[in-house]
C-alpha cells in the first residue's frame, strides 16, 4: 500500500524525490513495536497475581500458612509502594509522564494487594470492629492521596470507587445495574449526590489548575452514576415528577458540556440517557393509546435524534474546521 501512495504523491509533485527517498528509508527501517503485547502481559500478570493471592488468603484462612501468606502479600504490596515512591517524578499540578514503563502496573498491584490485605484483617481480626465505614475510608484516602501525589488515573478510579462504597453504593459501571438495589431511596439519593459531586470536581480543578487531566475520569463516573440514579428514581422509586426534571437538568448540563468542549462521548451518552427518560415518561403518562401511536412515536423520535446526531458538527463548537 504505502509504496503506491508514495509514488502517487510523487507524481502529483506534493513530495520531492528527496522526501520520497527519506520516507522510503524510514518505512523500511521501521522497527517492529511490541508495546501493546508487553503491556497486555504486564496487565494480565497484575490481574492474575491479585486474583491468585486473594483466593489463596481465603482458602487458607484457618491454616498455619495464613500468617506467612498475609506477610507475603503485605511485603509485596509494600515493595510495590516503595518502588512507586522511589521512582516517582517530582510533584506537579499538571500531567506527568510515567517514570518507567512498568510504573503504573506496579502501583496498581500495590493498591489491589493493599485492598486484599485490609479486607483480610477486617475479616479475621475485625480491626475496625463494626465501623465498616472506616474500612473503606482508609483505602479511599490512600488512593486519592496516591493518585494526586503520583499522578495516576488508574488509582484515581480505585479511589472514586472506594469513595462510592464508603457512601454505600457499588458504582463500577457494570456493577451499577447488577448489584445495586435501587428500590432503596437512600441509594438513589446517594447516587444523585455522588454524581453531582463528581461532576463538580473537574470544574473546581480546572479553576484552580490542579490535575486538569483527571476531569474525564471524574466526569465519566459522574455522568453514569448521576443519570442512572435519576432513572432509578423515576422507575424504581416511582417518583418521576421529582426525578425527571433532575434528569433533564443533568442531560442539559452534559449536552452543554459536550457542546463547549467538543466531547462526542458525553453528547452520545447524554442523548441516550435522555431518550430513555423521555420514552419512560411517555409510556407512563400516555396510556391506553393505540399500538400504532407508540410505533409512530419511536419512528418520529428516532428520526429526530438521528438528524440531531448526524448534524453534530454544526452543534458542537470547535476551533478546527
Amino acid at each position, binding site marked *: 500500500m504505502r509504496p503506491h501512495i508514495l509514488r502517487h504523491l510523487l507524481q502529483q509533485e506534493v513530495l520531492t524525490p528527496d522526501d520520497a527517498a527519506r520516507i522510503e528509508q524510514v518505512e523500511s527501517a521501521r522497527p517492529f*513495536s511490541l508495546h501493546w503485547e508487553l503491556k497486555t502481559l504486564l496487565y494480565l500478570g497484575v490481574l492474575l497475581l491479585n486474583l491468585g493471592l486473594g*483466593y489463596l488468603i481465603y482458602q487458607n484462612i484457618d491454616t498455619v500458612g495464613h500468617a506467612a501468606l498475609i506477610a507475603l502479600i503485605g511485603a509485596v504490596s509494600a515493595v510495590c509502594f516503595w518502588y512507586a515512591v522511589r521512582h516517582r517524578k517530582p510533584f506537579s499540578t499538571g500531567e506527568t509522564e510515567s517514570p518507567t514503563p512498568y510504573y503504573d502496573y506496579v502501583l496498581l498491584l500495590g493498591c489491589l494487594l493493599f485492598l486484599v490485605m485490609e479486607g483480610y484483617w477486617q475479616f479475621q481480626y475485625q480491626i475496625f470492629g463494626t465501623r465498616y465505614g472506616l474500612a473503606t475510608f482508609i483505602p479511599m484516602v490512600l488512593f486519592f492521596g496516591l493518585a494526586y501525589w503520583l499522578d495516576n*488515573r488508574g488509582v484515581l478510579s480505585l479511589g472514586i470507587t472506594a469513595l*462510592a462504597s464508603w457512601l454505600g453504593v457499588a458504582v*463500577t*459501571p457494570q456493577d451499577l445495574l447488577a448489584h445495586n438495589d435501587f428500590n432503596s431511596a437512600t441509594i438513589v439519593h446517594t447516587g444523585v449526590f455522588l454524581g453531582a459531586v463528581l461532576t463538580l470536581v473537574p470544574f473546581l480543578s480546572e479553576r484552580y489548575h490542579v490535575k486538569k487531566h483527571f476531569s474525564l475520569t471524574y466526569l465519566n463516573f459522574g455522568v453514569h452514576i448521576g443519570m442512572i440514579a435519576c432513572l432509578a428514581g423515576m422507575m424504581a422509586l416511582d417518583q418521576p415528577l421529582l426525578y425527571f426534571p433532575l434528569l433533564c437538568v443533568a442531560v442539559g448540563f452534559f449536552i452543554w458540556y459536550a457542546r463547549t468542549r467538543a466531547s462526542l462521548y458525553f*453528547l452520545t451518552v447524554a442523548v441516550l440517557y435522555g431518550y430513555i427518560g423521555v420514552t419512560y415518561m411517555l409510556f407512563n403518562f400516555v396510556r391506553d393509546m393505540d399500538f400504532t401511536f407508540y410505533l409512530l412515536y419511536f419512528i418520529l423520535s428516532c428520526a429526530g435524534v438521528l438528524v440531531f446526531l448526524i448534524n453534530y458538527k454544526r452543534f458542537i463548537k470547535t476551533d478546527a474546521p
Partner: protein
Amino acid sequence: MIAYDQTGLDALQIRDAAQEWRRQGLLSDEQWLAVQTQHNARFYSPNVFVRIGLAIFTLILLMAALGLGGLIANLNSEGGLAMLCFFFGFVLFLALELWIIGSSRHYGSGVDDMLLYFGTSLLVSGFYVMMPSNSQPLAYACLTFPFLVVGSIRYLDRLMAAAAFGCALTILALLLVETPKLALYVMPFAGMLFAGGVYFFAQQGQRRYAWRHWHGGLAVVELLALVVFYVSGNYWMVQQAGYGWFQLEQPPLAWFFWIFTFAVPVAYIYFGLRRKDRLLLDVGLGCVAVAVFTYRAYFHVMPLAWAAVLGGAVLFATAYFSIRHLRKNRGVYTYDADSDKTLLQEVEQQLIAQHLAQQPTPTPNKNESLGGGQFGGGGADGQF
C-alpha cells in the same frame, strides 16, 4: 463493485499515510496541507461514539417501522410475511444505496452499517420463511452464505466478512458430520485445511493493490482463520467433539493432537516475530493461554489459586525483562508505541477498560461495605 465512492476511499488511505508521515516529521505542514486539499474524501464518518449512538437509534427506528408495516399489511399468511420482508429489505437497500451512501455520502457512520445488517437480515428471513419447514440446517446455511459474501464485498463490511467466514465453516462442518465413521478423523484435518486455505487467500489478497479497499475485511478473515486452525487441532476441542458425537473417551491420534496443542502457539509466536506479523504473534499469545487451560483440564498439577499466582508472576516477569531488554538494545524490535493500531488492539483496549472496572474479588460478603469488594478501574482512561 464497491458501493462507496472509490476516489474517496483512496483519498482516505492517502491521508492516513500522510498523517502518519507528518507525525514522524517526514512531511512539512505545507505538504500536509497540499495532501489534504488534493485528497478530500468528503465522507460522513463520525467519531466512534456518535457511530454507536446513530446505530442504536437507526435500529430502533427500523424495528418500529417494520412493526408498523406489519400492522398495516395485516399479515395472515407465510407468503405475506415473506413479501413484507422482501419489500422492506428492498426499500432499505434502495435507501442505503441512493440516499445514505449516494447523496449523503455516509461511510461507516452507524446508519449505513445498521441499514446493511437490517436489510440483509430481512432478505434472508424472507427466503427462510419461504423454505419448506422440514429443510435441513445445511440448506439455511447455504442460502445465507452468498448474501454475506456479497454484503462484505460491496459494502466493505468487516462484520459481514467475519459472518461469511463463520457461515462457510458451518457449511463445512455440517457436510462432514454426515460422513459415516470417518467424521472424527476427517473433521480436525478438514478444519485445518480450510483455515489454512483461507489464511493464504487472505494474505495474498492483502498484498494485491487492486484489492486495497478490502484490506480490513481480509484482515478479519485472516485472524479468524488463524484461530480456527488452532482450534481444529486443539486436544480439548477434538476430545470434546469425539465424546459428544461418538462417546469416545480418548480421540484417535491423541499424541498428535497433544503435540499440536503446544507446538502451534510456539510456531505462531516464532513466525510472528520472525516475519513481523502482528496478527500471527497476537493470536499465538492467545493460543498459549488456551494451551495452558487445555493442559489443566486433564492434569490437575496445581490448585487454581497457586497456578494464578505463579502464572501472574511469570507473565509479569517476562514482560518486565522483555521491556528492559528492548529499551537497552535498540534494533529490529522496539517497545516504543506504534501509531497504527490493529483491529485486535482496538478491541483489547476496550476490553481492558471494561475489565478493570468489574474485577471479581474474593472478599466474603460478610459485610457489604468492606473495602475489598469494589475494585474500580481505568474505564475512563481512553481517549474521548
